[in-house]
């Protein structure tokens, strides 16, 4: 067995892989948060709960209707996206004229309610979700074994991030979205139904979270706390990447996942705090975040 810097290579690569996997979820979640923040000016604290809801929808589809993983990957985002439309229309849209803090409080409350309901109905121990048959097993990469499913998660997350980036940066719809982020009133005066666009942006952002939730279901068990475990780190990712920056979210998400993984090898005691250390340093040096535009 060979070693790198005195650490056994399998340990190092294992943690690196774990870091990249976590990074994939950080990226997907912070991407949705960034899009929502850019357009709605709301820090969506319910994001983790909706990620969890995505996993629960996948689990429910399988348990009650016998609908498997691949359909869940499509249906769960649609279901959670539709739920997002209801939330935005019914509750969040009433807060646009108020301070940011009200949106934060409302979505935080929503997160507590959604997670509480899940805990009440399903307990907090979690339910297993099987890896689909076509993604079972592992590949020998020569220096380590890569479980196929984990490789798939990284690829799927990267593709989804890229697709979101292309839509926002390279299409007319994305141009309208970017313009509305800058000056929603003027865009509306150009004939664009901005309120509808805001609703659909929220739905799209939470659908991304649900997609991540389905990806996560076979790795972590489906449990009511799975979102809460992620969300604090994801907020740090968004702050480090720069509020509202798409590219920043993706790069920072994967980057911090790796940093976290490597810290687990070299100095495990710091692995839970290293991200916040990075956040403090970045905010001191670049208050708008790594990819943020100074206001």
């Amino acid at each position, binding site marked *: 067995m060979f070693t790198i810097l005195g650490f056994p290579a399998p340990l190092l690569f294992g943690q690196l892989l774990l870091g990249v996997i976590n990074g994939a979820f950080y990226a997907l979640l912070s991407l949705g948060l960034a899009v929502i923040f850019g357009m709605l000016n709301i820090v969506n604290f319910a994001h983790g709960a909706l990620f969890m809801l995505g996993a629960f929808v996948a689990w429910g589809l399988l348990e009650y209707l016998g609908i498997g993983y691949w359909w869940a990957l499509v249906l769960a985002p649609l279901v959670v996206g539709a739920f997002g439309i209801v939330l935005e229309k019914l509750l969040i849209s009433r807060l646009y004229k108020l301070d940011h803090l009200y949106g934060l409080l409302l979505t935080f409350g929503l997160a507590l309610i959604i997670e509480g309901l899940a805990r009440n109905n399903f307990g907090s121990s979690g339910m297993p979700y099987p890896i689909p048959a076509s993604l079972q097993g592992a590949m020998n990469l020569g220096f380590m074994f890569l479980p196929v499913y984990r490789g798939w998660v990284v690829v799927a997350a990267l593709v989804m991030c890229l697709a979101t980036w292309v839509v926002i940066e390279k299409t007319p719809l994305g141009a309208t979205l970017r313009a509305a982020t800058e000056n929603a009133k003027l*865009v509306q*005066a150009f004939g664009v139904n901005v309120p509808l666009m805001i609703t659909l942006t929220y739905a799209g952002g939470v659908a991304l979270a649900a997609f991540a939730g389905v990806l996560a279901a076979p790795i972590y068990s489906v449990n009511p706390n799975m979102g809460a475990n992620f969300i604090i780190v994801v907020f740090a990712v968004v702050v480090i990447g720069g509020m509202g920056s798409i590219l920043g979210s993706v790069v920072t998400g994967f980057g911090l996942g790796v940093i976290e993984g490597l810290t687990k090898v070299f100095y495990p005691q710091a692995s839970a705090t290293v991200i916040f250390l990075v956040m403090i340093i970045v905010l001191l040096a670049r208050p708008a975040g790594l990819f943020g535009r100074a206001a």
Partner: protein
Amino acid sequence: MAEPMLQVRDLNAWYGESHVLHGVDFDVGEGEVVTLLGRNGAGKTTTMKSIMGLVPRRAGSIRFRGAELVGMRPDLIARTGIGFCPEERGIFASLDVTENLMLPREVAPGGLSVAEIHTLFPNLKERARSQGTKLSGGEQQMLAIGRILRTGAKLLLLDEPTEGLAPVIVQQIGRTIREIKARGFTVLLVEQNFRFAATLADRHYVMEHGRIIDMIPNAELEARMDTLHEYLGV
């Protein structure tokens, strides 16, 4: 007599507690170029924004081609066929020139094609891929006007299109406004520079303290120059 294209009656507007427009009345006929003149703070820009539905609160009546705009959402107002070029130009920094040009929705057939806009403003073609706000002030103004010519809107609201621009650019914008008038567009123009306005407009409304206080046909402008100077304090 047929109703004019745009008919504003007893228009009031508020920003929070402050009551900015106090019963504005004026008409714009189809194919006319009409200016709103007045000192800073007289309510010219607010009148424009009220027509577009961009003020927090408004009352009274704004009829455009028979449709009542008070109470209508800004995107639906735009879709009745009104193009808005705001005072601050409203060029988007995160969009390139082409994206800025293509942003306003097409609301009716009969707008200028992109090729025609590029003929009017060749700079926009050369800089198609530049970031919108990297353009010079004059080019940004051309972009702001060009993008609403594309939509097929037949009434254009231009808020101080010449503000802060070099004389040669002001002339180019003047030529453009005459050209679009010749093509049958109707223009409501806010201008500080009434000498510029006099070369284009059919009629001038003078605003003061949130009201229209006078209307001067362009033919009488020379004769009434003293009165106008008094109104504008120049």
